[in-house]
């Protein structure tokens, strides 16, 4: 931000003196904010902070979006799935759905969604479900099953009730890359294959980061006045570099994709969130998601054979014949849930949690952001940027909902 004192401070370079600590510092890249983690949350935080005028750098140990972000099943959540019981995230999903359709429309196939009640229990839940949606601001509407069948000919004809909701499909990779492109165009430094291997804490304040460049094997340091830990299910490993703990549960979920776009709308089972209850079309393929189980290690996840068989049979209940389509891929991703649990993690809220490690752990300037959904990436960026801007004493308001994002391709077009 031009004319803002306190931003982009340059340490004066001493001339004609022996090398001392000060000159080493001045040779180091300096940023207002360093972000650790190149997923959707980091991308949105980088964009938001550059819009507010901060000098930002982001470090991701792999390719951008290679952790959790790229692998989700692609549902643009209206929030309906969480309306019963997890109302905060349901509301946020709805308002973010509207914003994303405005700022990132070319990353979205907006074909709406249907919730299907397939048995007595589902039917009994239908009225409370619609009421919960409406009270969370989600315009859900029960429609006759015949009308649902005329919208989607291949859904289970034995469905007893159907509810129309404003769901859609997101291109997971492109949406995050649109945020990265927009951040890069505004001057953010974004480094992939750059693993943060050290966080220096000096007198209770976060100081420099030690980075390992995996492309050339070199290590270097950067200076940052504030650091955001946006490492998702790896957040606790990052926090441990600063000697602190972040409560995060890595919940592994498996998904299966088949060839063929067998529906245009997102088809969900009308029941409380469970395994294998969402079918999402993505361009010319269809995906059934997902399972969920707690995992200790979010790296190198692979689905079990039984999970694949279970998911395909669950998909057949919603869209008969799903499993007859040629199998394309089965894969797993680790969701980062805020909090800890002994069970599979379904009971943990999808709420967004921000940890200010200054007040919590005595490490000023370090913030962690955990939880949320792919749909809520923008507001996750906004919330953590609010916290960081407050800490840096530069209270500029968020404007990331006001501008259309650049297309994903701009990230790679830009030098």
């Amino acid at each position, binding site marked *: 931000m031009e004319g803002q004192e306190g931003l982009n401070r340059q340490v004066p370079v001493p001339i004609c003196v022996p090398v001392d600590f000060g000159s080493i510092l001045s040779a180091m890249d300096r940023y207002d904010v360093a972000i650790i983690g190149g997923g959707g949350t980091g991308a949105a935080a980088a964009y938001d902070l550059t819009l507010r005028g901060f000098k930002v750098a982001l470090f991701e140990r792999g390719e951008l979006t290679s952790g959790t972000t790229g692998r989700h099943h692609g549902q643009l959540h209206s929030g309906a799935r969480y309306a019963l019981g997890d109302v905060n995230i349901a509301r946020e999903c709805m308002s973010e759905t509207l914003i994303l359709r405005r700022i990132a429309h070319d990353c979205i196939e907006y*074909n709406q969604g249907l919730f299907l009640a397939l048995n007595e229990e589902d039917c009994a839940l239908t009225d409370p479900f619609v009421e919960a949606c409406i009270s969370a601001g989600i315009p859900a509407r029960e429609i006759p099953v015949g009308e649902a069948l005329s919208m989607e000919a291949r859904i289970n004809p034995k469905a007893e009730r159907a509810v129309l909701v404003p769901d859609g499909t997101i291109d*997971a990779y492109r949406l995050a890359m649109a945020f990265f492109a927009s951040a890069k165009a505004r001057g953010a430094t974004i480094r992939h294959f750059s693993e943060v291997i050290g966080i220096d804490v000096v007198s209770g304040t976060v100081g420099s980061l030690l980075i390992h460049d995996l492309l050339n094997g070199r290590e270097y340091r950067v200076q940052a006045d504030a650091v955001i830990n946006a490492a998702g299910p790896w957040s606790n490993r990052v926090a441990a570099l600063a000697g602190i703990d972040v409560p995060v549960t890595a919940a592994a979920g498996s998904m299966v*994709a088949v060839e063929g776009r067998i529906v245009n709308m997102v088809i969900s089972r009308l029941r409380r969130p469970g395994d294998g209850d969402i079918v999402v079309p993505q361009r010319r393929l269809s995906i059934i998601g997902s399972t969920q189980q707690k995992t200790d290690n979010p*790296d190198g996840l692979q689905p079990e054979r039984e999970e694949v068989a279970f998911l395909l049979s669950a998909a057949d209940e919603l869209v008969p014949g799903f499993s007859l389509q040629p199998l394309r891929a089965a894969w797993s991703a680790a969701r980062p849930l805020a909090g800890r649990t002994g069970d599979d993690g379904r009971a943990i809220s999808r709420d967004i949690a921000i940890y200010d490690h200054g007040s919590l752990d005595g490490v000023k300037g370090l913030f962690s952001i955990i939880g949320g959904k792919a749909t809520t990436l923008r507001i996750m960026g906004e919330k953590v940027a609010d916290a960081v801007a407050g800490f840096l004493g530069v209270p500029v308001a968020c404007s990331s909902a006001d501008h259309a994002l650049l297309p994903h391709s701009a990230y790679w077009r830009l030098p």
Partner: protein
Amino acid sequence: MRLTLRIRRGLPMEARYEFFVVDMDGSSTLLDALEYLRTGHAPDLVYRHSCHHGSCGTCSVRVDGKERLACLLRLDSLDPRPDGVTNAAGTQTGDPLPITVEPLTVFEPLADLVINPGLLFRSQPERLSLLRESEPVAKENQTTSEVADHMQNPIPSYRFEDCIECGCCVSACPECASSGASTAVPAFMGPAALAALRRETINRPERREELMERAGLPDAVPACKRHLDCSRVCPRAVYPAKHIELLRREIAK
């Protein structure tokens, strides 16, 4: 199943091949194998990946010289051949040949299997329309009457955007390789960009004139010499060569 992977490692100027033995379920993919190596013996192995289901187009590599998506390539489809070496007793040793994994060609190599995909995106026409709601529109090679027929029938809602921008076709194209495509102004814009251009002429008829003019320039359709490798390696059956030929015909009209 047991496989030996021969993986290109290091910076472009000092690249070498390293051998890794993996023993994984045959239903695992090459990407699963790379993940297994990175989280075990080779923590500094770098490769691109994101969606793990053939939708983002980041994990394309060359496997035994052919462009593939690592995430869709099952290990049991690799069918390692015995190396044919006979031992002193005259019987085959039966050791499988290693599978060679290399980065895409043509693109700027960064390290190990990582390339910079910028060339592909810089070659595309600007302001491409991307995803949108499903709508009953034509398949790429449908006639006008077939389109009209589909409009009246309820089912088919086609999506055009099959190209996942993986760069396989660019890497496989001999013209891209020989025309200095990695330079700032390549002599051939490449098959992916031309396929995207043709799709855009159908998606956005109002841009047709401008786009057809672009397609006729020397670095576009005329630079294609019909090698057809693009269509052979495309993992999403976009068949770029077909689109280039259709553009060629329209230009000739």
